[in-house]
């Protein structure tokens, strides 16, 4: 792929990430969730949007690199670490809803953390190995 194509791909991927992690949560919050102030979700939505900007940046960094390069493998590794932080926070959040003045409902999804942690750590481990694999193959092709 030429540099121009890679940059175009990077911009597209970054904009897609911004749409999914920034624009979409903002639209869902302002259109629907804002009608339930008792859920107090504003700070979580802000956090998702902030993480979305970081994810979009890493996606750009990863996508402007050529296939099977160390930079792309590092981008994948970085992305899996950021996703781990993102979902860890998401699963540890407790939704506190004040249904009436005297009735409060608290729901949490913390039971999912362990499965996600296992999946994410396996993913990170795979990406670490991939960085070494790509780096090693690049080193070998250079020596040839």
């Amino acid at each position, binding site marked *: 792929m030429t540099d121009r194509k890679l940059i175009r791909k990077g911009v597209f991927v970054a904009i897609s990430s911004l749409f999914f992690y920034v624009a979409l949560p903002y639209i869902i919050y302002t259109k629907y969730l804002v009608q339930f102030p008792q859920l107090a979700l504003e700070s979580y939505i802000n956090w998702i949007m902030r993480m979305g900007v970081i994810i979009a940046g890493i996606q750009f960094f990863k996508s402007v690199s050529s296939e099977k390069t160390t930079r792309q493998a590092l981008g994948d590794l970085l992305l899996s670490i950021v996703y781990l932080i993102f979902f860890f926070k998401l699963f540890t959040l407790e939704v506190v809803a004040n249904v009436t003045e005297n009735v409060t409902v608290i*729901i949490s999804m913390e039971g999912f953390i362990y499965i996600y942690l*296992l999946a994410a750590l396996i*993913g990170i481990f*795979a990406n670490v190995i991939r960085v070494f694999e790509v780096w090693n193959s690049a080193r070998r092709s250079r020596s040839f």
Partner: protein
Amino acid sequence: MVKISSIINIFSIFLKVFLGIMIFTAVFSLIYVNITVEPAEYGINEDFNIYVKGTIVVQNAGFYEFDDLNITLTFQNQYENETFAQVSQPLGKIPADPSPQYKSFDLQVPLSQLFSYKQLILNDTLILMNLEIKGEYALGLIPFGITVKQPIEWEAPLDQLKVYLTVSDYNSTHKSVIINYEFYSPAYYSYILNISYFYLQNSKETYVDTLSVSVPQDRHISDHTLPFVVPNGSTVKVVFLSELGFTYEVLLEVG
């Protein structure tokens, strides 16, 4: 060529897909759950326990059952920074069944437990009676809690208690003393109050007498003891004791 990283990554992706399915089914299933706490009945029984009785109706039309369902009754001050008493009752499991399932609870807290806090003996105050239902849904993956807060006017048995002595000379070495006491009795219960009094001199305690008073509901009680003789410079100890389970001591210097 198949890389080791790709094989490991497949496991990770498989787990993430499994997690996604679990989340989707659990959240989707939760939509079909309906929990109702029927208005609870509360009061003080003949054993001087505060009781709260009620029924929880659960319509669990989802795919998963409820585990470790537990109900807790907590008495707290109105600022929620001090817990006076707490009692729990397990409610067990609720299987996935669309028909209404009833779980009754009967929670009791002895009044004596609340009377270990001095402010609840001496002052009418607003306290919170919290009923909290806790449990886990979808194989323990979704813990949840429902809290119902009920503010109640706590009626102290010795509200605004005032104790003072009327002292007169008996002879050159002794004085004649009358103990005066006044307080407001609680609005929703009556009880028997025993008032024992002693005098202390040189670290030696001497018992004088015990009064037994029937305290009616919602009155201003004002009374005194019969006169008794104490040595000069002694201290009078008055002990208020009740079948409700409280003991309150007052020390007064004989002037």
